[in-house]
C-alpha cells in the first residue's frame, strides 16, 4: 500500500472486499452462536421426530405432506437466484451484474444444500435413504428430482468455484505473515496454481462461459421437476399442465427478492456501497417486477381455468383456498406478496434501497405462503365421500423449519468470512473496460479510415 498518495481503484476494491475476511467482530460471533443455537434446537426437534416417528408432526393420512415440503419448494426456489443473475445475465452480457454474481451463486449453493435436506427429513424412514441409490426407479418423479437437484448442486458448486480461482490466488498472495498455516494451505490448494497468465485466463473464461450456459437448462429442469412431484399426481390444484413453468417463474421471482435482501445486508455491514450501487438495486427491482408480472399472469390463468369450469374437486379446492380455511394465507400472498411489492417497485416515493428490501422481504414471505397454499389445500380436499382434512403444524415442524432457515443464514454468514463476496478480478476487469471504452470508437474509426485509404 502506498503512503500519502491516493490508492488506485483496484487497490481500494481489494481492501474493501478482503477486509471482512481478516477477522471477526464480537457482534458477528454473537450472531453466529445464536444462529447455531437455533440450528441445534432444530436438530433436537429432528431427534424427537426420529424417536417417535412422523406422528410428532401435524401430518396425517389425509394431509400427508406439510411444512417440510413447503420449505423444500421454497429453498429450491430461492436457489434460482444464482442462475438467473450469474448465468442468464452473463450470457446476455449485462455488465452491471458483475458485483452481484458471487453472492447470487452463494445463495444458490447454500439454498440447494439446505433445501435438499427437507425431503429426507420428511421421510418416514430416513434410515433407508440409501434405498434410493440401490433400488432407484427412474419412473418415479422423485428420482427425477434427486438427479436434477444433485446435478444442479454439482453444477452450481463448479460455477461458484471457477470465478473464485483468481480470487483465491489473490488471497494466497496477500496473506500476511500472521496468517495461520491452515489458511495458507487452503488458499494455495484452492487457487490451483493460478498465476494470471493469458493462457490461464483464456481457459478460465472459456470454462466459465461453458458452465454459465450449462447451468441454465439444469436450473430450469430442477424447478420443473420439483413441480412434477405434485403435478404427476391426480389431485385438484396439482393436476395442471402449467405447473412446470409456474414453479420456474415462482423460483426466479423469490430468487431475485432474496438477492436484493442479501445485497442490502452485506452492502450495509461489509461497506460495499461503492460496488453495490442504487443502480444495481433498481435493475434488480425491474427484474423483480417482470417476474412478478409473469407470476401474476400464471396465477390468474391457473385459477381462472379451473375456477371457470368448477369441477367438483376444483370447486372444493377453490372454496377452501379463496374463502375458507386457507383464505388468509392465500390473500396474504396476493396482497402482501404481489400487490404491495408491485406498488413499492413502481412508485418511487421512498429511498430506493429500503423500499426494494421491504418489497423483497414481502415477496419472500408471500412466496413461502404461496407454496403452503399450493401444497396443503390440495391435500385437504376429500377424494372419497368424507370431510376435509386438517393440518396444524406442530412445534417439531416449526422448530425444524426455524432450524433450516437458521442453517441457511449460518452457512451463508460463515462463507462470507471465508470467500470474498464480490468477484474482485471480474469487477476490476469491468472497471478497466469502462475506462477504456470511450477510446474504443475512436480507435475503430481510425482503423476504418486506414482501411479506406
Amino acid at each position, binding site marked *: 500500500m502506498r503512503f500519502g498518495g491516493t490508492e488506485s481503484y483496484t487497490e481500494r476494491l481489494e481492501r474493501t472486499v478482503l477486509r471482512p475476511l481478516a477477522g471477526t467482530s464480537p457482534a458477528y460471533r454473537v450472531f453466529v452462536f445464536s444462529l447455531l443455537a437455533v440450528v441445534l434446537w432444530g436438530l433436537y426437534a429432528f431427534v424427537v421426530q426420529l424417536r417417535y*416417528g412422523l406422528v410428532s408432526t401435524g401430518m396425517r393420512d389425509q394431509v400427508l405432506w406439510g411444512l417440510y415440503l413447503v420449505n423444500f419448494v421454497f429453498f429450491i426456489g430461492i436457489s434460482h437466484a444464482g442462475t438467473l443473475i450469474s448465468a442468464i445475465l452473463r450470457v446476455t452480457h449485462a455488465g452491471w451484474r458483475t458485483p452481484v454474481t458471487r453472492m447470487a451463486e452463494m445463495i444458490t449453493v447454500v439454498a440447494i444444500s439446505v433445501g435438499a435436506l427437507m425431503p429426507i427429513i420428511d421421510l*418416514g424412514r430416513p434410515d433407508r435413504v440409501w434405498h434410493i441409490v440401490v433400488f432407484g426407479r427412474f419412473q418415479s418423479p422423485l428420482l427425477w428430482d434427486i438427479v436434477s437437484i444433485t446435478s444442479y448442486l454439482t453444477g452450481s458448486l463448479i460455477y461458484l468455484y471457477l470465478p473464485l480461482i483468481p480470487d483465491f490466488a489473490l488471497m494466497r498472495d496477500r496473506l500476511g505473515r500472521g496468517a495461520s498455516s491452515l489458511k495458507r494451505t487452503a488458499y494455495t490448494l484452492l487457487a490451483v496454481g493460478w498465476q494470471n497468465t493469458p493462457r490461464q485466463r483464456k481457459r478460465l473464461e472459456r470454462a466459465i462461459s461453458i458452465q454459465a450456459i450449462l447451468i441454465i437448462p439444469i436450473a430450469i429442469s430442477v424447478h420443473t421437476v420439483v413441480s412434477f412431484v405434485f403435478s404427476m399426481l*391426480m389431485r385438484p390444484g396439482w393436476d395442471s399442465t402449467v405447473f412446470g413453468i409456474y414453479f420456474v417463474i415462482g423460483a426466479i421471482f423469490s430468487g431475485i427478492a432474496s438477492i436484493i435482501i442479501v445485497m442490502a445486508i452485506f452492502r450495509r455491514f461489509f461497506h460495499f456501497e461503492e460496488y453495490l450501487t442504487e443502480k444495481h438495486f433498481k435493475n434488480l427491482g425491474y427484474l423483480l417486477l417482470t417476474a412478478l408480472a409473469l407470476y401474476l399472469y400464471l396465477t390468474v390463468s391457473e385459477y381462472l381455468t379451473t375456477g371457470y369450469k368448477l369441477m367438483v374437486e376444483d370447486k372444493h379446492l377453490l372454496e377452501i383456498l379463496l374463502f375458507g380455511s386457507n383464505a388468509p394465507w392465500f390473500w396474504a400472498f396476493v396482497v402482501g406478496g404481489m400487490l404491495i411489492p408491485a406498488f413499492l417497485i413502481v412508485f418511487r416515493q421512498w429511498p430506493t434501497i429500503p423500499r426494494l428490501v421491504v418489497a423483497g422481504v414481502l415477496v419472500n414471505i408471500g412466496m413461502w405462503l404461496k407454496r403452503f397454499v399450493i401444497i396443503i389445500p390440495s391435500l385437504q380436499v376429500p*377424494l372419497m365421500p368424507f370431510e376435509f382434512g386438517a393440518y396444524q403444524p406442530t*412445534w417439531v415442524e416449526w422448530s425444524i423449519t426455524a432450524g433450516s432457515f437458521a442453517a441457511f443464514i449460518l452457512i451463508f454468514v460463515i462463507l462470507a468470512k471465508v470467500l470474498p463476496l464480490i468477484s474482485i478480478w471480474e469487477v476490476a476487469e469491468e472497471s478497466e473496460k469502462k475506462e477504456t471504452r470511450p477510446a474504443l470508437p475512436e480507435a475503430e474509426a481510425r482503423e476504418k479510415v486506414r482501411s479506406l485509404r
Partner: protein
Amino acid sequence: MQRKEKGLSRRDFIKGVGSTVGLIAASSYALPRLFGQTQASEPRAAGDAAQARTRAWCMVIDLKKCEGCVTIDAPPQCTQACIAGHFVPKGQQWIQVYEVGMSGGGSYFMPTPCFQCENPPCVNVCPVAATYRDDEGIVLIDHRRCIGCRMCMGACPYHRRFFNWAEPELPPEAALARYSPLYPVPAVKGTVIKCMFCAHMLRDGKLPFCVSGCPMKALYMGDLNEDVASNGMEVVQLSKFLDANNAYRYKDELGTQPRVWYLPGHGENFRRHADDPRPFLKPVWSYGGTGYDYHPGVWPWGETTK
C-alpha cells in the same frame, strides 16, 4: 518377469481384490437363501395343476346387500374382520365403509378395499419399487424397502393407503406373525400400508377376511381369468353377474382400471331404505390406545391428544 519376483504386481492386486469382493458379494447373495428363512408366501403346492394357473383377482361388491351393518346394529363387519385378521393399527380402515349421499337425499353404503388397479398410479410413482403389482394383479408393498416418502399416498385417487406415523400399538400376538408383503403384519413404523386382498389367504384357497366376515354376503371374491366369483355362499359367473347387475367401477374415468366392481344399491335386499335413520357405527379396536391421533411431546409442550 522381474516384477513378479518383487511380489504383488498391480494386476495381481486388482485380481485379488476383485475376486474377494466378488466372493463376498456372491456369498452374501447365496447364503441367506441357503440357510435363511423362506418366505411363507413363496412356496406353492407343487404339481397341483389347478393352482399353477395365473389368477387375476378381483372383487365385486353388491351394494344391494350392503346396509352398512345398521340393521344388525353393529360396526361394519368387513372392517372388523379385517382389523382382527391383520392386527390393523388403530385408525386405519383398509376396507372402509363410506356413507355416500344419493340424489334424492338418502344415502347408501360403499365398502372400499384397495382397488388393486390394473394401471396403479401408486406403483408408478414409487421411487424404490417398494410397491409393485404381483403376477396375480395384486398391488403389494414391501415394508422392508419402503422409505416412507408417501408419494404413493399422494398418487392414489381413492385414498386407500395409510401411513404408520409411529410404532403402532398392537396386541402381543401380532409380534408372532411372520412378515411378508402378502401378510404385512406387524405394521412397520414409517412405512405405507394398505389392503392386499388377503393375498396370503387366496394362496391357500381361502376367501379374504372381509368377504367371509360380511354377514350379508355382499362381497364376492373373483378371478377374471376363470370368470368366476364367490361370496362363500354362492358361486357366480363373473361376467354375466356384472352385466346382469349393472356393475360399475368407482371413478372409472380416471383410467386406473380398478379391479373392484360395484353393483348399485342401498341395502334394499335387507329392507334398508335410502333414508334409513339407523346410525352407522364406526369400527372399534380392542387395542391400540389413541392410534395415531396424538402428538407425542417431549419438552416444551407436553403430550397432547387431538
